[in-house]
């Protein structure tokens, strides 16, 4: 934590007093909800104890501690805990009208609703914006879908791994070299992966919510955000689209190269699967860079006059990249970063998760935050990713681990909605609410050795210590 430059910290977080009903599943909107919780909102995650309709991040997504789902598997998945930290938990089987009515009662006393069902599901539940606005006129609601609530594709389902190339960013990404697996370099798009599109939706939802809260404070009006991940994704490729609109250019794939910088790329370092990135922006960078190499035995060729001018470097990139690779191959990735950054040249290691968790900069800034989980989970203390922003008069951090399934059923139904103990019990009896999953078993896992064979993971760290 950098804390406040003036030393002053506000007593309340920015969203203190804001209540969020989070109906969402999987990655994009749950993560928006988690960030709202970090900002101080009270976020009630609506889930169900019917395993068939439970958030799949509790089950099939994993990962589980040491790859063991354990008995209480639905409380033990690492991605779930990343995306649902700070939230309280209410179970409701929304297929029933009684549960739908309870949800409306909850919306009546809430500020924000997050959901990512396909349009027809919310309409079928009678929980679309028009219905919810009838009980809460100034409601702010984000409906996140693949393709939005209007247009010919509006009822199509979607997932980020298929959306990423569909919304065009993949067209601006591809290898220059021949592919060992038969993909032709000149026409093969690629992906950033990591469910990239989901997070574009996360940041978009947060921005829209904050803008809507300001709008509501000024006008007393709510807002419905029809968030189509496809359309949001295209807005991240906007300059590429505009290049087509003006110039008719459809793609711009150049491997790891850059239109005006050279050398520019990702180069191998000592060790297996170790890489460093380098970007020589201009002549000043080039002078510094070439001097670093020139003093090394066997790299005098870097001073060749054909590399002196930017155009010469761009036109001789193959040769230049060979020299750079030959040099980086004798170095560690952090060594290259240190020596080039000292000379003022942009360079940095390609870090994996272990690299991030152990990197001195990320550690110094306290980016990863430790959370102590309740004993029922058997998770102990784990570290989670933090967030990309710091507000100088707040000490934003993860407020608490995700609640256990249905942990706040009584609290929400009794204290917020005024149900009696008997009424809550009868909801349990008809299985509208519940704390123990019905109808499922622990998800099957694939052994870590097999995962390495299949290429799902690169390696298992033998020195892995639970963080």
């Amino acid at each position, binding site marked *: 934590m*950098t804390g406040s*430059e003036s030393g002053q910290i*506000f007593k309340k977080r*920015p969203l203190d007093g804001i209540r969020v009903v989070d109906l969402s599943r999987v990655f994009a909107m749950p993560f928006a909800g988690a960030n709202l919780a970090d900002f101080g909102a009270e976020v009630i995650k609506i889930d169900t104890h019917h395993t068939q309709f439970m958030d799949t991040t509790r089950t099939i997504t994993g*990962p589980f*501690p040491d790859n063991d789902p354990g008995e209480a598997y639905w409380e033990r998945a*690492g991605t779930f*805990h990343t995306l649902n930290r700070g939230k309280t938990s209410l179970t409701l089987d929304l297929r029933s009208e009684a549960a739908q009515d309870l949800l409306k009662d909850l919306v009546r006393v809430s500020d924000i609703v997050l959901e990512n069902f396909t349009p027809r599901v919310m309409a079928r539940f009678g929980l*679309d*914006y028009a219905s919810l606005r009838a009980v809460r006129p100034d409601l702010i609601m984000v409906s996140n879908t693949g393709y939005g609530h*209007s247009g010919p594709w509006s009822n199509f389902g979607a997932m980020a*791994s*298929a959306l990423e*190339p569909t919304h*065009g960013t993949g067209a*601006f990404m591809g290898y220059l070299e021949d592919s*060992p697996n038969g993909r032709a370099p000149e026409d*093969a798009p690629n*992906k950033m992966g990591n469910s990239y599109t989901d*997070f574009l939706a996360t940041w978009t939802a947060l921005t*829209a919510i*904050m803008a809507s809260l*300001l709008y509501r404070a000024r*006008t007393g009006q709510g807002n*419905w*955000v029809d*968030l189509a991940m496809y359309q949001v994704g295209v807005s991240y490729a906007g*300059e*590429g689209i505009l*290049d*087509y*609109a003006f*110039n008719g250019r459809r793609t711009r794939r150049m491997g*790891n190269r*850059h239109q*005006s910088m050279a050398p520019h*790329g*990702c180069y191998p370092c000592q060790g297996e699967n170790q*890489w460093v*990135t380098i970007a020589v922006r201009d002549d000043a960078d080039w002078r510094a860079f070439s001097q670093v190499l020139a003093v090394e035995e066997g790299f005098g060729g870097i001073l060749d006059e054909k590399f002196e001018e930017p155009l010469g470097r761009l036109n001789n990139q193959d040769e230049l990249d060979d020299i750079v690779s030959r040099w980086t191959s004798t170095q560690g990735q952090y060594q290259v970063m240190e020596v080039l950054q000292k000379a*003022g040249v*942009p360079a940095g290691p*390609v870090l*994996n*998760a272990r690299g*991030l968790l152990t990197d001195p900069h990320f550690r110094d800034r306290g980016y990863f935050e430790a959370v102590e989980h309740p004993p029922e989970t058997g998770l102990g203390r784990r570290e*989670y990713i*933090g967030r990309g*922003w710091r*507000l*100088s*008069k*707040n000490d934003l951090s993860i407020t608490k681990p995700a609640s256990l399934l249905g942990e706040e059923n009584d609290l929400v139904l009794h204290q917020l909605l005024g149900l009696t103990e008997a009424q809550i019990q009868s909801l349990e009896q008809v299985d509208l609410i519940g704390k123990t999953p019905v109808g499922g078993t622990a998800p099957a896992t694939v052994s*870590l050795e097999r995962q390495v064979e*299949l*290429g799902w*993971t690169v*390696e298992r760290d033998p020195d892995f210590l*639970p*963080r």
Partner: protein
Amino acid sequence: MTESAGSSTSPANPGQGILEGVRVLDLSSHVSGPFCAKLMADYGADVIKVEQPSLGDVARRSGPFVGDDPHPDKSVQFLYLNSNKRGITLDLTSSSGKAILKELLAKADVLVENFSPVDSKNLGLDYHSLGAVNPELVLTSITPFGQSGPYRDFSATDIITCAMSGLMYHSGDSDRKPLRNVLDQSFYVAGANAAAATLAALFQRLNTGEGQRVEVSIVECLASHLVQAVPYYTYMGAIKGRRPVRGSGFEELMPAKDGYVVPSVQGSQPWPVVAELIGLEELKDERFATGAGRIEHGEELKELLIKGLANWDRKPLFQASGEQRLVFGMAQDAGDLFDCEHLRERGFFVEVDHPVSGKAEYPGMGPKMSAMDFEFRYPAPLLGQHNTEIYCEELGYTPSDLVNLRSGGII
């Protein structure tokens, strides 16, 4: 806009964005800060872009350019990221420039900058100084590594921040190098993170009456995407990598007749629906019906998949998949998207007439909202286009003051 989010409820204040009345000074350049300020502008904030006299934003000099003419008002990156803003010039290094900035600050709610920590300090853009001028100001600073820590003063371009955030290690194919996206995605992501955090600080101001500093680290924004890779390590000690080239080919880019598609078994449909759609009899084999079977017989399945997909063009397959409640994807390029009937019907593209670059349909706003209809109020500004409007009409300088400031190189 018909059939918009507004179809169920008409905008409360048509023609105005929901951030109407919020004034943003955008002192930033290139992508991260400009995208942050653009998002606020698209929501209706009054954004004034402040550029260094004569040179302007570095994005003005980066291609591609309209008609491949390297003219400062023809960079498509600049045009895209600075539409809906007004533009003025001001030399922030001069004492007169600093004095004028203070006048601008008095009326501003937000200042966005993405100078290096050293440059921003030298320019006097620290919160201590700016907050003294306007205690309600939200100062948003975006840098590659944040304002503290051992790398705070390191230099970086997009490829460096993609690498050091962990994103790039996981991007591309497992049997090849990590791969970067050409479109500076780390800077876009950071801009969106910055916009959300800035607006949160503005919302908090309603309760406290005070502004604050919002500090954004580009690598930390992108590292937030690793909601699988990080717990894979902290829960199992397993290192996730780039996408495997082995396996069945599902959820991966696979060749079709006229390009690439992403076949998928996800969604809530059983395997026979997937097999039926692709339309190859051999795919209906029981061995492929379960997830475990598809892993076990991955290589064989991939061969069949390639054979089946070779009969399909991208779009008919994509459409058929959607209608069958499957979630296939297809690789689209900029031209495909520009002509996309779905985006067209949602009114995503909006014509903008720029005085130098001319007319074109620009991509509009990501989300649609019931409370506002998106519109382009201004094309991207020419360098100093709104100097008279802001300095004379708003701050009360006379035309002859402006001449003096210009000859002094201040504006």
